[in-house]
């Protein structure tokens, strides 16, 4: 019998738990045009959208590291208006389940973005990127202050009907505490985790490799940390919300590990750069894995870790 891969993120039902991570898939056009029908994915999470277009950082913006890469793109994006008029119609036309990642410099930005996108029929859910500096609070990141993270979450949640996912930053030391604050503030689901701040140095030139000096580390190098954070939050949560596991997933075994650690769904990120068909391949491979392991429903895997 065909196994059930459907999962729920708040009220939103995904056809399978394989999503693609913000910033690694653009707005979906390149993949759909060249490689596969992106409506096959559980969801497409768009590049982070801000109210106004953002130019991004100076170059070099990317650097390869051991089993991973650093990036400091600087959240370059087309801005809300152009997203709605130029990018969203395409996602809607190809029937992609679309989750829009949003970012702001102050709480009002997030609220305005979320409210506007909540009205758009092509948008199925909102993912809050809280790894951004809060301009009003002296530049401290929303994601490294549980009270601030809770405040932005509740401010947005009050104003929208669609499911709200909050993407947590690993650059805060107590992930279960952060998760509790955000869930209590109304998050329907948690994405765990964003990139870890790191740096690369060119020893010959005695200079940082990235123009921005620091960047976000991604790829298999961060997978053990991401698994630990998913597992910690899953085990510590009293009020259970779906967890979307993210961090260095490269193959089907990685997907299963994240599900076992407590994820209901996963996001494929940097692997899209290495193998452009990986996310679609993983949808097929996950179904095959379930058939081979006699698993009728994907929910059986979530939190199935034996400890």
């Amino acid at each position, binding site marked *: 019998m065909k196994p059930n891969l459907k999962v729920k993120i708040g009220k939103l039902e995904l056809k399978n738990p394989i999503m693609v991570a913000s*910033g*690694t*898939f*653009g707005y979906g056009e*390149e*993949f759909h045009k*060249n*490689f596969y029908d992106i409506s096959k994915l559980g969801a497409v999470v768009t*590049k982070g959208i801000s109210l106004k277009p953002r*130019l*991004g950082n100076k*170059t*070099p*913006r*990317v*650097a*390869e*590291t*051991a*089993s*991973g*890469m650093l*990036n400091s*793109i600087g959240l*370059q994006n087309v801005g809300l208006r152009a997203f709605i008029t130029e990018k969203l119609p395409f996602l809607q036309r190809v029937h992609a389940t679309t989750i829009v990642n949003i970012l702001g410099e102050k709480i009002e930005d997030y609220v305005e973005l979320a409210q506007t996108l909540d009205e758009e029929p092509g948008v199925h859910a909102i993912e809050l990127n809280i790894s951004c500096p809060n301009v009003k609070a002296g530049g401290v990141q929303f994601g490294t202050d549980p009270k601030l993270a809770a405040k932005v979450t509740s401010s947005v949640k009050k104003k929208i009907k669609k499911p709200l996912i909050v993407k947590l930053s690993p650059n805060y030391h107590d992930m279960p505490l952060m998760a509790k604050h955000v869930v209590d503030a109304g998050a329907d689901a948690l994405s765990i985790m964003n990139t870890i701040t790191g740096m690369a140095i060119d020893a010959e030139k005695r200079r940082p490799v990235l123009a921005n000096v620091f960047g976000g580390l991604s*790829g*298999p190098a961060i997978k053990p940390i991401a698994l630990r954070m998913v597992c910690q939050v899953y085990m510590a949560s009293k009020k259970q919300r779906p967890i979307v596991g993210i961090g260095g997933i490269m193959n089907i075994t990685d997907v299963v590990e994240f599900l076992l650690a407590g994820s209901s769904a996963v996001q494929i990120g*940097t692997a*899209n*750069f*290495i*193998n*452009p*068909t990986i996310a679609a391949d993983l949808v097929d491979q996950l179904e095959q894995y379930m058939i081979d392991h006699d698993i009728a429903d994907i929910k059986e895997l979530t939190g199935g870790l034996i400890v």
Partner: protein
Amino acid sequence: MQDTKAKILLNERYRQNYFMMRLEAGWEDFVPGQFVMVAVPGGKSFLRRPFGIARLTGEGILEICYKVVGKGTLDLSSVPVGTNLQVLGPIGKGFDISKGTGNISILVAGGYGIAPLLGLAEALVQEEDRSNIHLFYGAQNEEHLLYLDEFKEMGIGLHVATQDGSLGAKGLVTDELKKFLLSTINHQPSTIFACGPHGMLGAIKMIAAKNRNISSCQLSMESYMACGLGVCAGCVVKDSLGNFVRVCKEGPVFEARELSDI
């Protein structure tokens, strides 16, 4: 663009630290100036590596010429013939030869920037009078000049410069270009196609801006790159409006006047 498993037919040292690789890609077509992203086997290189396409034969055999500059290219240089590599391509916007129809075509290369100009020259000789095609080619010394025999066979104008004078004129190739523009074609419409180090491209942009007979000056840009797909926004350069544009999507070939940080 497609992601193809391609068998290595040739992977050998050409000269110095330059290697030539031929792959059975089976692709039908490409635009000179486009590039590929190659997955390097061995597990030490996480990201794919970008290389300009030197040429693509009628049988779909892809040729690239690369310099060993780091661990990725070092590992690539030891991959045996017969191995299958994942090759993504052809990527990006190549040279636009339709802009220069009837013009004098001036190709300018620095170092291993010559590779994409080989395919370009092969396309141009099909369309244009060979006496109207000129290659200006500069390198450190004679040992760093690649594909010279191929260009000689085409019967186009060859203008070589080496920094030590071991072959051709001694000095910078851009100085040779300036002399040529002053002496011969000042009143003939011309198109420049260039690939090479950043400094050389900057000098060419200045030369082109001062010469009103150069109707199009197309520069092939190099950049650090993660995906080659147009999605990571890692490879950007600044355009004349101050926006960042992607080398892998809007480029790698740009009109010089559309770029601001060169």
